[in-house]
């Protein structure tokens, strides 16, 4: 449809030929309400970001990232929290990438949608996406920190819990990416005598890597911001040292911000705000990396 037609449709109904003042007023009032609705969201976002910046700017410096947490505000930083978060994310990626992509490949390439067990799997994935994150924390506490796995409140336990939390998202994104691969690629490979797995490994997967990478980064960015499960799984110990490995105690960025927010000294509020800024920057950049990857490979694929 031409732009002129679109414009015409959009502006249809905006002028009332039988100019009855009341109807016109109603129309304007309604538009006002709608614009107000949008404004609430935008104003909320802007206020949140500006307030974090205004509060946190005094402490937004390199020392924030290299000083470990401390009960003395002048020396308190976020180092162990940042390193802890990095460790956690590496762990999450290691766990969720093979399982999520594997599940996606199975559901897209192998599964017969009529069989009951495949439907069960699909329903499960959908249900899990709606479970509150604190319940994942309970699962982690019961089975991973204590119970059968009994790892204790260590990085590995945090990674596993968060991995389970974001698994549905990774599966979904990977499925999308795999679905987007044109079937001509598959059929060509099969026609040349490749087995199904060879087709997937050599043709489908490489073509869907950008989409999968995008999905992974999105899921990781969601996992980074999760606080509730970590409260139950990581414990609120005051950790000043960086974790030495996956079987070490840890703290994470949202946990540390939480800790600083609850302290009444005003200086800690500044540090917490600075932490919020760090998180926001981290998340925005992760999302943009994801989008950039997708764009670059999309162009590459189109050229081919």
């Amino acid at each position: 449809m031409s732009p002129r037609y679109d414009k015409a449709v959009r502006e249809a109904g905006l002028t009332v030929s039988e100019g009855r003042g009341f109807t016109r007023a109603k129309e304007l009032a309604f538009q006002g309400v709608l614009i107000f609705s949008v404004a609430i969201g935008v104003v909320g976002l802007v206020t949140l970001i500006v307030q974090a910046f205004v509060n946190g700017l005094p402490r937004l410096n390199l020392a924030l990232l290299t000083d470990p947490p401390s009960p003395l505000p002048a020396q308190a930083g976020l180092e162990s929290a940042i390193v802890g978060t990095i460790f956690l994310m590496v762990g999450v990626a290691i766990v969720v990438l093979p399982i999520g992509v594997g599940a996606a490949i199975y559901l897209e390439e192998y599964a017969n949608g009529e069989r009951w067990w495949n439907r069960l799997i699909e329903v499960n994935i959908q249900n899990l996406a709606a479970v509150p994150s604190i319940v994942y924390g309970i699962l982690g506490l019961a089975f991973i920190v204590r119970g059968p796995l009994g790892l204790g409140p260590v990085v590995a336990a945090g990674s596993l819990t968060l991995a389970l939390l974001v698994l549905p998202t990774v599966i979904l994104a990977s499925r999308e990416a795999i679905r987007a691969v044109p079937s001509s690629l598959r059929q060509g490979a099969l026609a040349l005598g490749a087995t199904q797995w060879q087709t997937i490994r050599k043709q489908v997967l490489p073509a869907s890597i950008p989409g999968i990478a995008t999905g992974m980064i999105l899921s990781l960015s969601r996992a980074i911001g999760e606080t509730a499960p970590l409260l139950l799984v990581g414990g609120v110990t005051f950790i000043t040292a960086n974790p030495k490995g996956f079987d070490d105690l840890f703290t994470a960025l949202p946990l540390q911000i939480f800790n600083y927010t609850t302290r009444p000294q005003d200086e800690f509020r500044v540090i917490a705000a600075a932490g919020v800024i760090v998180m926001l920057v981290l998340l925005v950049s992760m999302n943009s990396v994801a989008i950039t990857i997708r764009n670059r490979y999309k162009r590459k694929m189109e050229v081919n």
Partner: protein
Amino acid sequence: MSENERLEIHVKQLIRLAPARPLALLALSGLALGVAACGGGGEGQGAGAEGGEQLSGTINIDGSSTVAPISEAAAAAFQAEPPDVRVTVGTSGTGGGFEKFCKGETDISDASRAVEEDEMEACSKENISFEEITVANDGIAVALNPQNPVTCLTTDQLTQIWDKGSDVSSWSQVDGLQPSFGQELKLFGPGTDSGTFDFFTEAINGEEGQQRTDYNNVGEDDNQTVRGVQGSEGGMGYFGLSFIKENEGKLKAAEVDGGQGCVAPSNETVQDGSYAPLGRPLFIYPSDKAVKRPEVKAFLEFYVENAQMLAEQALFVPLTDEQKSEAQQKIESLGSQQAAVR
């Protein structure tokens, strides 16, 4: 399924649809990657320190949230020297700390009250023996909002407010309150795992654990009590004296009349025992098994040696000289026991 559809649509848009503005986004991501790189690369604490002895290992401390700041200060100072010893300090509460301690999960337990019978039994069942070392003195401060005109509370009034079954909801209902004050009463206090809770309830209500339940239960997070009382004109809470000192101007401590007149909590009144019945010693309990490790012994010696300075740094009431030499003797005897066994 709504969440699924939502995610699906969101992901579809990102994976398939129109490109966004790459340049600005790339710049942002570059900035953030820089931030993350700097953060991940810096090893601030403990690197490059010489350290005489080759001590290494991890020391796990858990327990009272009141004692934790001193232990944290000791840990921070101790870790500044030998680079390989890691000390972690948890705040599960005096009760929670003992539970873990008596399972062998921690090396030292922080406590704001003395260990109890059933805890001693639990420990002996697991063959864990320990020592009791006093590291500081403390008074439980009764915190009031600065706008509250009341300056002194008797223990009877405290009992009336805090006892089990009490339904006092306004300051005007407190018997014999001087001067009169009509604000709504808002109570903030620690949870049942807290040694402060145990001590306060025993001292004021006569039995440990006995208290009304309709108060703002901050668990181990005494900072929430500070914030709560600071923000409520009729607010009242209790915690260790250090929190008053840390938040000067935001709160005030009520004088407590235990029968000998109104006494304000201070270093002197706590040390000479006149701030009664809310004065108490603060303990650490190292396990004998842990003390056998050289790094733990070194840490304990460091702790007690510097206890007075650490206490002052953490705004606690320091040990009297008498208490300090007693503690040092205990540490020495732990060491010599070890030597004797060998």
